């Protein structure tokens, strides 16, 4: 796999409490505070963390949909490295053809006054890429790939269910044949059966169209299913980043342990034994000294209170920002109770009358 995107030391600080017209801001919300990672072409990188951890802001900053306060974004396109931060508005708009976004709420992200055909085709018209029958052909092709009924393209979004609307939103995002998609809680608002449809659709499209995803979600089970690697955010920084199985089964950061041990597994024979976090999450305006997690970490030592742990490669591909990653033995997902997976769950068949 080749590298698609590399971000280095991205920061997004929002000023708060401006005093007067020429006044300086009273402080900054450090929503994203120095994040670096790479995304390989064709992979899905998950981004998880609790509300307020900065994951949505980061997702937008990567596309410069929110202007980062600092840092570098380098995107590999057609064999050249494009410095996204150096682009002017026009250059950025041209790059956005290759970088798209899918949002959580399929109810508010579609214009209610446009037919589905127009919603999906609008990016082609806006970018002057197709018109007439070519436009219509591309819309129909993408609608079919996304599992929409072509006969319904003349209808308005309100006539569709939540799952169908998310398919429309996906078709619109993919109509320009982008390479990189930021999925911001793309399946969070959907019912279980529909969520599975959309996750499968995203996986199929990834193979068909060679897509790369940054998959932002708070549902850890869905992330585990969808992603090759997962990054955990806490208070605007990456706490840990690793291949999915490594992160879920053998986490190295105490915050990841708290997350993973708290996933309620849909198996009554496995009783959850979560590691509870004490205290409240500190404000991103005024993060604690040393490790950002030290105020709630049960393993914290003096070193954690004074020195900031750097994100470092603990094992190949497994990065962690914790001073004590080597000494700690942490609980992963599924380490509550031991029970074999019931055999019937592996086969979707039903045995009548048993």
């Amino acid at each position, binding site marked *: 796999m080749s590298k698609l995107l590399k971000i280095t030391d991205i920061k997004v600080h929002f000023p708060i409490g401006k005093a007067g017209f020429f006044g300086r801001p009273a402080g900054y919300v450090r929503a994203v505070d120095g994040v670096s990672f790479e995304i390989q072409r064709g992979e899905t990188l998950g981004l998880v963390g609790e509300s307020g951890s900065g994951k949505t802001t980061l997702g937008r900053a990567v596309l410069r949909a929110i202007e980062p306060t600092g840092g570098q974004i380098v995107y590999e396109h057609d064999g050249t490295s494009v410095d996204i931060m150096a682009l002017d508005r026009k250059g950025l708009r041209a790059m956005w053809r290759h970088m798209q976004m899918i949002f959580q709420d399929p109810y508010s992200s579609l214009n209610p006054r446009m037919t589905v055909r127009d919603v999906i085709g609008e990016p082609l018209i806006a970018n002057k890429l197709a018109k007439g029958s070519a436009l219509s052909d591309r819309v129909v092709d993408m609608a079919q790939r996304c599992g929409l009924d072509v006969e319904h393209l003349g209808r308005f979004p309100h006539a569709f269910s939540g*799952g169908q609307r998310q398919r429309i939103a996906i078709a619109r995002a993919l109509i320009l044949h982008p390479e990189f998609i930021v999925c911001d809680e793309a399946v969070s608002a959907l019912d279980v*059966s529909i969520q599975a449809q959309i996750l499968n659709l995203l996986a199929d499209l990834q193979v068909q169209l060679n897509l790369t995803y940054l998959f932002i979600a*708070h549902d850890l*089970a869905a992330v585990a299913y969808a992603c090759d690697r997962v990054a955990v955010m806490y208070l605007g920084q990456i706490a840990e980043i690793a291949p*999915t199985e490594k992160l879920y089964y053998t986490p190295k950061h105490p915050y990841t342990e708290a997350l993973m041990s708290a996933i309620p597994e849909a198996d009554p024979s496995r009783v959850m034994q*979560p590691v509870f976090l004490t205290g*409240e999450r500190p404000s991103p305006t005024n993060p604690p000294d040393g490790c950002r997690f030290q105020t709630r970490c049960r393993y914290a030592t003096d070193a954690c209170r004074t020195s900031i742990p750097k994100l470092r490669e603990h094992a190949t591909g497994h990065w962690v920002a914790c001073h004590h990653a080597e000494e700690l033995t942490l609980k992963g997902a599924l380490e509550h109770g031991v029970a074999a997976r019931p055999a019937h*769950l592996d086969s979707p068949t039903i045995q009548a*009358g048993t």
Partner: protein
Amino acid sequence: MQNDVILEVHNLHITLDFDGEDIPVVQGIDFELSAGKVLALVGESGCGKSVTSQALLRLLPRELRITSGQINFQAADGQAPVDFVSLAKDGKKIREIRGNQIAMIFQEPMSSFSVLHTIGNQIGEVIRLHLKASKAEARALTVELLDKVGIPDPARAVDQYPYEFSGGMRQRGMIAKALACNPSVLIADEPTTALDVTIQAQVLELLRRLKADDGMSMIFITHDLGVVAQIADDVAIMYMGRIVEKGPVGEIFGNPQHPYTVSLLNAIPRLGDLSARRELASIRGSVPSLFERPPGCAFHPRCDSFMEKLCDAQPPPLTRLSPIHEVRCFLHQAAEKEAAL
């Protein structure tokens, strides 16, 4: 009513008044809640689980109406059971029970607290209203309640306003308010859905402790099968206003028999086999609108076991697979008949 049954719903029908037309929303559901147990009503949006929970306390909005059925409640005082359906909607009797013997918690804790009053005043109000306590007594009891639900520094928290609480604290605050009158039944409508996973774990632990220590009975409404597995004793799976399958949690998760239950359990991402990256089994199509309810078994257009002229002709009757496991599906009725021959 049986001995340890505290709340019993029998053949409950609820309709939506849509411009004078009656649209069925809940179509004859039955369940029992035993003392000290947690019953989960599970289903996707539109299945009628929230409407059912509101009907239990006669809290339905005006356009929804109970058309028939019984909701029998056995109060702790040992008197004869009361049928809520027979009571006046906002009468004195139901108001005495609501919030007092049966309390309710909701998904969004911010909307169930007034922003203008302190947490202490709002919980204290419930105590003073129902228990006729003095201001000082109410305050002392409130501090005790806040402590019980795990709010740090309760003596200070009692004078704080809801905006000063985080999401998890507000949810605990709401549980404290619900517990104010020492109810025997708690109805929890998606109480952890809006919470982060670590906070969800804390709230589930709190509810579990209430059950274990105080013998609280709960009706838990959720769409999250993971949460169900972790908290429920009994499960009722709902689809378009009917209970399609019901039984103890181990039985429903370990031996599901309705095609809908099986599909739901297969559709959730699981953590056991991350290396496999298997395709999730989804259910085709989506839940139809209330106005386009399929005839017969409402699940038949999405069901892989659909049998023509049977599933689409009439609703499947209840089949008792065992004394504890019930299902509404023609697959099992057919099997039952064969066994009888």
